[in-house]
């Protein structure tokens, strides 16, 4: 290849490094892995929403031929209730009880025992032979039920306002004087909203394969959003030191936040240790729906006050989020993100974490933020209507910009929110004519984004190519973006850069794939490592030419004299320098580990058109445009993919997805037939407008992009349906039965 061809890869739609494996069926996901002597693990789950576990008799199961190990909570390391042990945002007291019920079973599907046997069928048969003596207790699932004075309390040690309570947390964000703000307001809109629990809906069920050898060393292949999280949690819950656990990240078949905690890995490790055999565990779809995720159901009230000219002077939000069986609902996202797109002088935002007898929530794409934005952005729509101001104009008038102090703390540097509003306003979609029973809605959204720990090792191979190892599982195409950046820095073809995700024992600590951190953080460490390598390459060339390293420049994949004064030398390419590496000082490579800082939040503005079939009550999204400040699109194809995927999930949340419970407290729709995620024929093309306002705190200007696109969707769809029908929905999903009910209701609320 010609070393002097400019190699500019940032912003190019290159082929992803893991792509060919994935279009040929060769990519190894966790459930695809096997080992000699492997046996199968299965979990026995509680059928009750709430029950005290008096006794578990596993003797009959243990005697069944083919059964190699049985475990219960006795085998899992206990974390006593009186002392919190945090791992990231997870409290190990809850994690240890979530993977295996200890004192009480707290939701239908809560694991109570696990079996490993030579076949899946024998393991299932053995589970049925385990005798659990339950004392069935009263239960509650819905927030209102869990907050009743006589509600069964899930965690008796917990008090709120000096009484035992299912409210296990409160968070407040304040700015200015809320009472004074509303006193000044000329127009006030206050509304209450409800959303149902929805599942992340990854197509790959949780799966792992674990080997524990006779000397106590464990190897875990699993599908997760963080091999280091898997290692740490498994170490905590099994008692095996982290240095003896090699957690290998398999390809992950979707996570969306739902694979940021463990369910199977500690149990498979304990079963493997006890049986002496490698143990594979794969959840069924039903287990996924009953016992993992989902995100919170919610109820909220939002009140906003404005002057007649549209200046918003006060905003108050109260958000109750279902945590499920253990504390930890994403109130931070609801409380902190909802009003953040706007520069409002007086804000009070309060969130309550409510436990109830449902599976423990797991993170879901911008956790909490879509729930908060749904309420806030619908109220804004009503405010715009009351003020007779265009909804985008109202947002523009109040938009946060550089220097705005967000209620949750930071003062914004240069941000691109205004640009997203302007782009939406000027987009042909916004002025396109609408037909009968069609409506248009807009909404905006914010997500914090994260940085945090990241490690990378960049090595130059003996033949002058590049291997980059990072530590964050790649879900959405981060390897492709890393290849673009590293190739551009080195000035070589991107195909010469191989990007892999290392396991816990071969790459330095890297935080979870979550918080939209991965490309922000990993490109920072990869950039530093690559720059170190370029420094080495310049030094090597300087040594060969016997000139000063400062007199050598690196350009288009080769060392050149920096100027004619430095001397006349033919360029030394990466391949030439690599071939001389050992003679000139040794192998060329660099590792960087950082706690990355400067992940600025992201903003988006969406336009949605719907058409409502008033006979069937079906609201269909017929056109959608997502505008987002993405910092810099390193690989535009996968940035658009994040926007399009987030929008599709939001449309599902808005229109169809919900957990439905039976009268006896069980999930009634634990499968893809009845839990209705959008299919291909439900959606239109999803247009993306990538606004690029580079992050001033990142070498390539990268901002996280993965979570923002889910935040505005629920309200954009709700506002569009309101625009189409003149009727507003205050609860999700806006599914056909609810739309029909609304259409049949007498017209009385319009003048409310």
């Amino acid at each position, binding site marked *: 290849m010609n070393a002097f061809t400019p190699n500019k890869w940032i912003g190019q*739609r290159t*082929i*992803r490094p*893991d*792509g*060919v*494996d*994935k*279009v*040929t*069926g*060769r*990519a*190894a*996901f966790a*459930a*695809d892995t096997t080992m000699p002597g492997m046996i199968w693990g299965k979990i026995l789950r509680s059928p009750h929403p709430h029950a005290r576990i008096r006794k578990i008799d596993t003797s009959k199961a243990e005697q069944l031929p083919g059964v190699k190990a049985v475990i219960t909570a006795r085998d899992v390391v206990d974390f006593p209730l009186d002392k919190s042990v945090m791992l990231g945002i997870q409290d190990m007291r809850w994690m240890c009880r979530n993977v295996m019920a200890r004192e009480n079973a707290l939701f239908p599907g809560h694991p109570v025992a696990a079996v490993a046997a030579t076949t899946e*069928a024998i393991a299932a048969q053995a589970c049925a032979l385990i005798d659990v003596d339950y004392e069935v207790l009263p239960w509650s699932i819905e927030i209102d039920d869990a907050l009743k004075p006589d509600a069964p309390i899930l965690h008796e040690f917990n008090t709120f306002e000096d009484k035992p309570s299912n409210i296990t947390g409160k968070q407040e964000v304040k700015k200015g004087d809320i009472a004074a703000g509303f006193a000044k307001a000329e127009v006030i809109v206050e509304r209450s909203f409800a959303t149902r629990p929805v599942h*992340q*809906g*990854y*197509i*790959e*069920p949780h799966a792992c394969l674990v080997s524990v050898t006779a000397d106590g060393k464990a190897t875990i292949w699993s599908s997760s959003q963080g091999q280091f999280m898997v290692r740490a949690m498994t170490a905590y819950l099994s008692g095996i030191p982290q240095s003896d656990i090699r957690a290998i990240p398999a*390809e*992950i*078949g*979707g*996570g*969306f936040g739902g694979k940021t905690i463990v369910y199977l890995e500690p149990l498979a490790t304990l079963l493997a240790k006890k049986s002496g055999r490698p143990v594979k565990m*794969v959840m*069924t*779809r039903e287990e996924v729906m009953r016992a993992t995720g989902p995100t919170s159901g919610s109820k909220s009230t939002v009140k906003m006050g404005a002057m007649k000219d549209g200046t918003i002077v006060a905003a108050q939000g109260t958000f109750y989020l279902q945590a499920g069986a253990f504390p930890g609902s994403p109130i931070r996202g609801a409380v902190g993100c909802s009003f953040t797109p706007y520069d409002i002088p007086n804000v009070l935002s309060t969130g309550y974490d409510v436990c109830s007898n449902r599976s423990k929530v797991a993170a879901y794409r911008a956790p909490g933020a879509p729930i908060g934005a749904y309420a806030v952005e619908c109220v804004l729509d009503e405010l715009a209507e009351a003020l007779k101001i265009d909804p985008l104009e109202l947002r523009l008038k109040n938009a946060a910009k550089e220097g705005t102090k967000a209620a949750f703390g930071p003062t914004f540097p240069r941000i691109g929110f205004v640009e997203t509003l302007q782009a939406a306003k000027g987009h042909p979609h916004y002025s396109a004519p609408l037909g009968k029973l069609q409506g248009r809605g807009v909404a905006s959204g914010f997500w914090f984004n994260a940085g945090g720990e990241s490690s990378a090792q960049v090595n130059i191979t003996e033949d002058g190519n590049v291997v980059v190892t990072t530590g964050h599982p790649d*879900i*959405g*195409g981060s390897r492709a973006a890393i290849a673009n950046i590293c190739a551009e820095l080195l000035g070589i073809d991107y195909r010469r850069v191989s990007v892999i995700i290392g396991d816990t024992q071969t790459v330095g600590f890297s935080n979870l794939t979550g918080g939209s951190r991965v490309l922000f953080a990993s490109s920072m460490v990869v950039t530093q490592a690559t720059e170190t390598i370029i420094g080495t390459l310049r030094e090597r060339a300087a040594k060969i030419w016997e000139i000063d390293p400062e007199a050598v420049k690196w350009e288009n994949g080769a060392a050149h004299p920096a100027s004619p004064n430095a001397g006349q030398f033919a360029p030394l390419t990466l391949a030439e320098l690599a071939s001389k590496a050992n003679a000139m000082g040794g192998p060329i490579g660099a590792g960087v580990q950082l706690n990355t800082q400067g992940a600025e939040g992201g903003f988006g503005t969406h336009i949605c058109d719907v058409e409502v079939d008033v006979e069937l009550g079906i609201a269909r999204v017929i056109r959608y445009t997502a505008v987002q400040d993405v910092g810099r699109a390193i*690989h535009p*194809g*996968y940035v*658009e*993919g994040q926007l*399009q*995927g*987030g*929008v*599709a*999930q939001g449309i599902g949340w808005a229109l169809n997805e919900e957990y439905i419970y039976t009268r006896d407290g069980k999930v009634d729709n634990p*499968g*893809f*037939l009845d839990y209705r*995620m*959008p*299919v*291909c*024929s*439900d*959606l239109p*093309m*999803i247009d993306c407008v990538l606004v690029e306002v580079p992050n001033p705190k990142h070498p390539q200007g990268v901002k996280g992009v993965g979570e923002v696109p889910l935040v505005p969707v629920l309200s954009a769809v709700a506002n569009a349906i309101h625009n189409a029908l003149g009727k507003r929905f205050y609860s999700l999903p806006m599914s056909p039965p609810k739309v029909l009910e609304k259409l049949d209701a007498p017209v009385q609320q319009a003048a409310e």
Partner: protein
Amino acid sequence: MPKLHVTTTINGEPMEFLCEPDNTMLDALRNDLGLTGSKEGCATGDCGACSIMLDGRLVCSCLMLAAEAEGHEIGTIEGMSQGGRLNSLQQKFLEQAALQCGICTSGMLIASEALLKKNPNPSEQEVRFWLAGNLCRCTGYDKIVRAVLEAAAELREARP
């Protein structure tokens, strides 16, 4: 109960395997034949990640008994590229960024190939309805539909 002996053809190769009477074709492919490209997302025929071809017809291998393969021809994702070369659909999926996590990709490709064999010039709507049995949670389907339409156009051009 003794295992059943099945003689079949997979991706053009004669194959034999033993299975339990209640094993699905997906179990046989993944656990006995080492063909793990077909994925299990639901085991109820709702997600399409296990899509295979049975005598030229698109089926969910999770809804087919392994024993039913006897005497029939099965096509899986592992047989899609011939002689180490990607076919048009595989290539377009890569170029269009039509996959993110990749768990649905095998099924999407098998289903798309079945469509283009039946209908070499599908409209966007025809692609969307044909692929309605294949769930993808990552992409919002936009780029998948575009990749299928582009591959169709390329295949039409390549034909005499």
